[in-house]
């Protein structure tokens, strides 16, 4: 038999039918739903008199537009409240589990899926959100879809899709101290570009990937979409099984043993062929900071703002010139030392417990710089509770950070957490697009430890020079 990649195996196991015109009808194991991209899909079902085919494979939560302040108060945005009410009504009417604002399991959809053990190796996972690629960290094929496709999956439990190509991104060597999963993925995106993996599923391989924790793997897979990939995947291994064992919705007892046996067959076979390969020396990666308005506009913290003239194509030169004008940056400026106004620790990329610990180690015993407003938004209410058990909330509050409830928050600024015009933000999120965190806001993406250090220094700094403290 021809050696197959991890992706080939998951794909093959889910093909229900091949349409004569080419694409496959692909079975979906887990459909995650949130308030912003689903109301029109449910309305479509209602109009056509259709039901949700497998409500037990469909799980909903609220995250994109939820307030992160006091949960005992009603949301002060009536339009957002209407969207939350619509999801509650749809979940009731169609028989879907919903983790709403009153639930201790509420959180960002890509944080709670893994946390609850819903996300498992070998699955096809979809959600009306591009960062669904996060779940590929478990060896699932997980992809973001549009609202029409959400409706299609609700109605049929399947997705129509042409088979994407495969790309292997191999990270050799080991990370240097102070270098995180976020730095690895940012460096890769910087190398291959914002469309470098369009039409491809990336499989991340190599010793620097194998040695990552599950949460770090999620950070890597999360940003696959920022390179244009359909999905990112990492082969399941003992790290994966140890994370999943005992989670509420993971298989248990005899079913667990059977599942692990099946999962062990998933990793790519020796000699399996990828359509494209890229190799990266993880040991050479430094902490990364974006300087522009695309995650691909990134360099090491020791670097300088580039000049449009440094770029080969006219398209790139124009894009860089626009980005520098928007970011109010001059070519040649060192990134280290750039003053900031805001810090955002949060998002589906970097708001899990390990991220909060890494930031707290930097923040402990220090103070947020005068004039800087810093926000910590845990990825889920469970992450928040865990952090509070460990006393991280006290570390952050004592340092002058605001401690919030879970949600997408300032990653996309649909709720009240937004940047003001011209404000510069050190952010652990995933997109530095124009206006993403607030109209006129300027975003620099980086790791949680780097963002925490920026909060304390009031400017971008290299966290490797800092003493980190025990918690």
């Amino acid at each position, binding site marked *: 038999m021809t050696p197959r990649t991890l992706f080939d195996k998951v794909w093959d196991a889910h093909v*229900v039918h091949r*349409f004569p*015109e*080419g*694409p496959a*009808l692909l*079975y979906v*194991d887990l459909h995650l739903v949130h308030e*912003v991209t689903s109301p*029109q899909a449910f*309305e479509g079902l209602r109009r056509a008199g259709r039901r949700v*085919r497998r409500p*037990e494979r469909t799980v909903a939560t609220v995250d*994109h*537009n939820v307030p992160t302040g006091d949960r005992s108060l009603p949301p002060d*945005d009536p*339009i957002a409240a*209407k*969207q939350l009410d619509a999801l509650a009504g749809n979940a009731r009417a169609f028989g879907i*589990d919903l983790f709403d604002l009153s639930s201790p399991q509420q959180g960002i959809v890509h944080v709670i899926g893994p946390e609850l053990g819903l996300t*498992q190796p070998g*699955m096809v996972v979809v959600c009306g*959100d*591009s960062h669904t690629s996060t779940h590929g960290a478990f060896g699932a094929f997980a992809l*973001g*879809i*549009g*609202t029409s496709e959400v*409706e*299609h999956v609700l*109605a049929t439990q*399947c997705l*129509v899709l*042409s088979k994407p190509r495969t790309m292997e991104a191999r990270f050799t060597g080991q990370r240097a101290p102070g270098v995180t999963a976020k730095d690895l993925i940012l460096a890769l995106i910087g190398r291959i570009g*914002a*469309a470098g993996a*369009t*039409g491809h599923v990336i499989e991340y391989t190599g010793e620097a990937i194998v040695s990552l924790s599950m949460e770090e793997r999620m950070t890597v897979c999360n940003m696959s979409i920022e390179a*244009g990939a359909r999905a990112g995947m990492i082969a399941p291994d003992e790290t994966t099984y140890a994370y999943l064992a005992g989670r*509420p*919705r*993971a*298989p*248990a007892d*005899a079913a667990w043993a*059977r*599942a692990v046996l099946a999962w062990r067959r998933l990793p790519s076979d020796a000699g399996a062929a990828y359509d494209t390969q890229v190799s990266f020396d993880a040991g050479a990666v430094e902490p990364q900071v974006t300087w522009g308005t*695309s995650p691909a506009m990134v360099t090491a913290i020791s670097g300088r703002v580039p000049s449009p003239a440094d770029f080969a194509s006219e*398209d790139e030169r*124009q*894009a860089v010139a626009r980005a520098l004008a928007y970011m109010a940056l001059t070519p040649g400026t060192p990134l280290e030392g750039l003053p900031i106004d805001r810090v955002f620790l949060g998002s589906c990329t970097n708001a899990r417990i390990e991220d909060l610990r890494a930031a707290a180690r930097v923040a402990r015993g220090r103070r947020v710089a005068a004039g800087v407003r810093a926000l910590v938004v845990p990825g889920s209410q469970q992450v928040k509770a865990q952090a509070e058990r460990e006393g991280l909330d006290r570390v952050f509050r004592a340092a002058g950070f605001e401690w919030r409830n879970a949600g997408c928050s300032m990653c*996309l*600024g*649909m709720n009240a957490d937004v940047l003001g015009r011209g404000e510069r933000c050190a952010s652990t999120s995933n*997109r530095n*697009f*124009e*206006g*993403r965190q607030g*109209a006129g806001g300027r975003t620099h993406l980086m790791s949680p430890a780097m963002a925490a250090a920026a909060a304390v220094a009031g400017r971008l700094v290299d966290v490797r020079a800092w003493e980190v403290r025990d918690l």
Partner: protein
Amino acid sequence: MSEPFIRHTGKCVVLPRAHVDTDQIIPKQFLKRIERTGFGPALFHDWRFRSDGSANPEFELNRPEASGATILIAGANFGCGSSREHAVWALAEYGFRAIVAPSFADIFYANCCQNGVAPVRLSGDDSDELARRCRAGRGAYRLTIDLEAQRVTDDAGGGFSAAFTMEPYRREMLLRGLDEIGRTLLEEPRIAEFEQGREAGFGMREA
């Protein structure tokens, strides 16, 4: 289900920027609607309008010669970023029936096809040439996009003609304005058979 797209002739406007993301096409503050309509007025909001709410005369779509354009000539990797289908709803409601670009982001491309908006991939050279001709035409330049023939031609007798390809399934959907769900539901017996054939106990445990 959407209006079939077979052939369309219309006026063009050029948006000469690479990597236009869906946050630009429809910013997040407009995503709170629970309908598929009402997004057109917010298309490219932060570029179209200045911070005081007035129209930005510099923005390509606000120029007089862009008025009534139905074909957008865009840069590479158009529609990257967020999966929000609201971006396509906004483009369609504003009046665009087709987008011509050297490349598209995957999710955006699929979303176009779901809404009767034709995403047309032309080579970078052909796109550049089209953009040049469109600018020179100062609002009078019109294109015909023939999805049946998979060809883009201009009206001006200027002789622009370029072939494009679209995967047959997507093309068929657009040509016939197909209801994809209705079509998949015809395969219901296969879906049921697939579910029954799966290894018992594999996957999610019931809550």
